[in-house]
């Protein structure tokens, strides 16, 4: 290797797959170049990356310069520019831009497709990736400015593949695997994710928003893609009718034939399955009963938390009248504190072409694009202008489900037309009855 990396070398021990070993392996592959690839960026990019990382370990500081503005013509985002602050020491990473590649919904791949991507990235990039970025994109880590258009051309012309989003726009949407491999999926998360990604390409590629905006799609309240915490607009599947209940299968759980939670806790002895203790008593609303070997659910009081279904997946199933809830405003702490999504639409059908869902999205955008301050997330606009305003612009009637609890302070605003006589009282009229 080009640089000594004593600190990084320590991370090659231990049982977890070592990113250091992998980077060294890629460095070696590039050095040997058995396939005779005509590398378009420095062949020792991986070695210089290890070198600069080792230096950062030593200094306990980053060695990347601030910011970076690069991209492809036609788009306002998709590439994260980055330059090393020690380019003479590590010329291989003087330019080290990251490209976001739009991933397929659910992240299902064929090896053929991945191989094509790898060939292109070996040729025009560092060969280093992140599978995947937290938002969902395939991430290509490290290339030079002149390669960006070349890569984009190849991606679009040969691989039929677009870039992901970055900047003040709609970022790459992502979803749980949904109905592809999960019996809890209340709607086709992949189809909705894919459809909306296609429908809103313009919003994704050309920043037009006050700030970033993310969609995420969860098939049920288990939230495997964590939409409620990591997307400005979170789509979470649910149902409206009764949980489907199979008493025979319940008996099989009670009898010990099936492991609870599909065996998720089998690594430790938790004793014999106790349906009363592990399901009925843990139901958050207490709407279940187990008597005389029969399980009953008062579905009117069920909040569809998923607990009982998660524990007895073979006996309990989601209802048949399915749709999703829309929650809005999740964001990380900067600027005014972390937020999770707040319930906006309790239930909407998720059926193609998703007209009702798009209406809500576009109403939210119209409002936020006009009223949002520079770099103000939707969640912050909701705080600043009020949830009431959000309901108005989305034309949704306020309902008890919109709050966890009613307000406790009495600073209540009324609209003028709600108040008899309006707000234009005449002091002289008042003085007739109240002397100074």
């Amino acid at each position, binding site marked *: 290797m080009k640089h000594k990396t004593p600190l990084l070398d320590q991370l090659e021990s231990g049982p977890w797959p070592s990113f250091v070993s992998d980077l060294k392996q890629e460095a070696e592959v590039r050095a040997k170049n058995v396939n005779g690839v005509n590398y378009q960026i420095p062949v020792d990019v991986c070695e210089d990356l290890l070198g600069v990382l080792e230096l950062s370990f030593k200094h306990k500081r980053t060695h990347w310069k601030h910011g970076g503005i690069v991209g492809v013509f036609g788009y306002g985002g998709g590439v994260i520019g980055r330059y090393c602050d020690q380019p003479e020491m590590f010329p291989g990473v003087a330019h080290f831009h990251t490209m976001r590649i739009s991933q397929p919904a659910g992240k299902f791949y064929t090896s053929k497709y991945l191989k094509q991507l790898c060939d292109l990235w070996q040729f025009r990039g560092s060969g280093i990736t992140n599978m995947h970025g937290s938002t969902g994109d395939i991430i290509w880590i490290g290339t030079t400015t002149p390669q960006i258009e070349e890569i984009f051309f190849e991606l679009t012309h040969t691989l039929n593949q677009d870039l992901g989003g970055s900047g003040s726009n709609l970022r790459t949407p992502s979803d749980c695997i949904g109905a592809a491999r999960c019996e809890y999926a209340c709607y086709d998360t992949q189809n909705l994710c894919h459809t909306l990604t296609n429908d809103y390409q313009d919003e994704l590629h050309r920043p*037009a928003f006050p700030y*970033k905006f993310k969609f995420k799609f969860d098939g049920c309240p288990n939230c495997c893609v964590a939409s409620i915490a990591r997307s400005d607009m979170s789509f979470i599947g649910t149902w409206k009718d009764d949980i489907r209940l199979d008493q025979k299968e319940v008996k099989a759980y009670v009898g010990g034939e099936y492991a609870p939670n599909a065996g998720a806790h089998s690594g430790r002895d938790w004793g014999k399955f106790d349906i009363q203790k592990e399901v009925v008593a843990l139901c958050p609303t207490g709407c279940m009963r187990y008597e005389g070997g029969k399980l009953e659910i008062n579905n009117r009081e069920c909040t569809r938390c998923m607990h009982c279904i998660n524990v007895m997946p073979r006996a309990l199933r989601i209802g048949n009248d399915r749709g999703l809830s829309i929650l809005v405003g999740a964001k990380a702490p900067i600027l005014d504190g972390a937020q999770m999504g707040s319930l906006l639409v309790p239930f909407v059908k998720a059926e193609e072409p998703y007209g009702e869902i798009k209406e809500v999205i576009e109403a939210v955008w119209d409002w936020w694009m006009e009223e949002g301050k520079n770099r103000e997330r939707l969640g912050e606009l909701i705080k600043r202008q009020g949830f009431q305003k959000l309901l108005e612009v989305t034309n949704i009637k306020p309902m008890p489900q919109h709050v966890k609890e009613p307000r406790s302070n009495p600073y209540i605003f009324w609209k003028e037309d709600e108040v008899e006589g309006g707000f234009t009282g005449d002091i002289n009229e008042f003085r007739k009855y109240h002397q100074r």
Partner: protein
Amino acid sequence: MPEVQFAGKTFVTDEDGFIDNYTNWSQDWVQFVKKEEGIDELSAEHQQVITVLREYYEKNGIAPMVRVLSKVTGFKLKHIYELFPSGPGKGACKMAGLPKPTGCV
């Protein structure tokens, strides 16, 4: 800092090709930047966007939000991309000599 020579002038830029200082901007800079930003002919509309950006920056010390740029120029975002293929940030702001956009880009 890289230096570029154009029309007998020297401009200091960063790696992304943004000018080091707003006050060192001139029409020569615009002529220089246009080719690397994918612009063949400068039109009055290009100039209008540049003028709006510079005036806004001088008055407010920041670049306008995209929405404001659209409102003031009357150009929809689509048209701004037709004028400046890299978009309002990398394309127009760079040509107008404004500082490089920052944040989560």
